[in-house]
């Protein structure tokens, strides 16, 4: 094919090696976070003196997992035709069930309330694994920076699906708001935003938004301050 990418002979072997290593790392992280969640469910701050530290370990483990997942997706060229993008009609109730269940133990252990504002019967066409990953990551972040509440709100707005993760913390600092704007802007090969620690997650989420295309419109991501509680808002819009 004339538009085929060059395919150096060693790339396939390297890919297999990376894939099997990634598989191994994912197994380890699965066991780690699974064990932590189980310990936390069985414990309480009253009976377990290390409860806050365990909750923090879970938060860090989830970050590690999100980063690994995002790196893998980027390696598989998320955002380009090379990525095995998988569009399906998904009822939002089912989408949110998965996001909620992924964050449940961490929310509970941090004493944070998750508020939901979703029409569970609304159906949207999206890549479920990617969107669940993006939302779950956004909620993990919000848990770290919020006061005591995180809100997940999804609605249809002028033919778009707007997914908002809001918190009641102090809001994003200006530098991050700018990084968000840069990460989501189309820029060829520039990775200077990655100097920011939040860069990978934002870049990944921006790519996931872009992959969702419909009738010439592509999805988008932006950060803002305000929303229902005047804190940070992570806003994903899908066509």
């Amino acid at each position, binding site marked *: 094919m004339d538009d085929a990418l060059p395919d150096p002979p060693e790339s396939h072997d390297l890919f297999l090696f990376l894939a099997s290593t*990634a598989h191994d790392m994912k197994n380890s992280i699965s066991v780690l976070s699974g064990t932590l969640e189980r310990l936390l469910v069985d414990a309480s701050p009253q009976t377990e003196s290390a409860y806050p530290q365990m909750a923090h370990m879970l938060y860090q483990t989830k970050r590690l997992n999100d980063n690994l997942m995002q790196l893998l997706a980027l390696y598989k060229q998320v955002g380009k035709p090379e990525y*095995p993008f*998988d569009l399906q009609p998904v009822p939002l109730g*089912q989408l949110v*069930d998965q996001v909620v*269940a992924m964050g449940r133990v961490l929310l*509970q252990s941090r004493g944070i309330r998750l*508020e939901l504002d979703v029409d569970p019967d609304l159906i949207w066409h999206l890549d479920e*694994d990617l969107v669940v990953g993006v939302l779950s990551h956004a909620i993990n972040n919000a848990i770290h920076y919020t006061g005591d509440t995180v809100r997940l709100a999804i609605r249809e707005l002028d033919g778009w699906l707007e997914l908002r993760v809001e918190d009641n913390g102090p809001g994003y600092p200006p530098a991050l708001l700018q990084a968000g704007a840069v990460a989501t802007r189309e820029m060829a090969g520039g990775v200077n935003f990655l100097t920011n620690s939040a860069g990978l997650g934002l870049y990944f989420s921006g790519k996931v938004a872009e992959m969702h295309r419909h009738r010439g419109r592509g999805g988008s991501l932006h950060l803002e301050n305000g929303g229902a509680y005047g804190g940070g808002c992570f806003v994903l819009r899908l066509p």
Partner: protein
Amino acid sequence: MNLANPTAVAMAADQVDWADKNYLVVDDFVGIRQLLRESLRSLGAKNIDQASSGGEAMGLLSRIRYDVVLCDYNIGEGKNGQQVLEEARVRNLVNPSTVWLMVSAEKSVESVMGAAEHQPDAYLIKPITEGVLLTRLNRVWHKKQVFRAIDQACAEKDYLRAARLCDARIEHDKIHALDLLRMKAKLMEKSGQPAKAREVYEQVLEQREYQWARAGLAKIRMANGEFEQARQMFQSVIAENRYYIDAYDQLAASYQNMGKLDEACAILERAAKLSPNSVPRQRSLGNIALKLGNIAMAEKAFRKCIAIGEYSIMKTPDAYLGLARVCGQKNDTKEALQLLLTAQREFAHEHPDIQLRTKITEGLVYHESGDYRRARKAGDDLEEMLKLTPDRPDTNTCLELATLLFAVGVKDAPVELLCYVIRNNHDNPLLLDEVQGIFDKARMGDEGLALIRSSKKEAADLMNQGVLLWKTGKLAQAVEWMRNARKAVPNNQRILFNAAQIMVSHLQQHGYDDAMYAEACEVLHHVDRLLPGQQRFAQLMEQLAALQPAADASVSAVA
């Protein structure tokens, strides 16, 4: 739980009871097996078996019926997860209601191709959390309920009934509407109504650009002989999603139909790089490379095909025969013969024609390596083998065999074979031309022309006499006549269709009869194996199903 509104997002009213089900967890990593077992236990599950390899999984699957299988794709040496699934389905070790979830470390190419014959019910990416697991289990379960009657009708090959069942649901089942539309399109293709399949695909594309719908339209174009348009459409599907592997196979087929073998070969090579573990794709690549004389590529493809087939129930002798010819062309007749022996040993049970096919390849190997004496000996052996039985292999093997026999100097046997092919395909002009070509090459052009004409007439007379008996109301005699005609000419599709049609008339006019019903079913299934996707097949299957006393009850029960 600190949720404001925990019930708002819960599943719909009909919750599934996951506690009483039988589970099998397959993963080579003990930590993951334990983690999944814990997750399943928190759903209430009690009966959970574990396997650490494909072989162990097969052992358990052959003894116990599971309701849910959670199987990792990469499970070390031996079979992979897909091969375990294929073998379990082919050997009927799982029920149609069994939920099969395939687990992998990352989004796999296979999960979006959507065209493989044996698909799991869902793909899960690690790490698997309880929420994701429960949501996907419930989703698959509900989908299976929706599709149960449709799948049943499909299994009975009553495609038109299945399509009506789809129609009845599409309107008010928003969650499954897209799956139902996709199924309906497939059913319309299977029942020889591409125009209706096209309507469905266009309906889907009005909503969203789904690549399977675009590829579906392209396939219809190709079936219609519009190869260039089909080629462009497949190429645009690939441009949108480079991992939509099915489009590569179809694109290669479009090129092949246009006679552009080089381009077809290049596309298959690219697809085999992206998704190397497909037995049929490596086989196609090997065959086309062999035709092009690209011995190195053919050898690589056939060897890969044999290697991935080692643990797969989907393996066939073709790669062994193809590789034997590659070896012959490299003057390594020793390895060629070794491969043929292996093929005879491995496929003796499932492929009753393997002796004949390996002998044909042996003849070709000797002929192509210039050993004309041994080639002639193989030809004589083949002639003897044909005398032992009235059964003849499939059309392509017959043509290949006749070509070889003429080439090594045998006369009577290939003439008999070609007349047999004509009698069984008397209204297929393309095939008649091909047969004439073989006669021409053997310098028997005029003789061949006369033979083709008389064989055609023989088949047409057989059929017309049966139809005449039917049209003049002599139904019992017509059935008997067509029964004998089928013995004389077992693979003639028009004779088979008319035989089934006459039996349907008999059942309609003289009442239902188990034996004749079964006979008509057998005839129709035989013709569907010869050439799937014919409209007349779907129509006759529907008429036949309507005659069966029990069938009526089941249709009304699910409607």
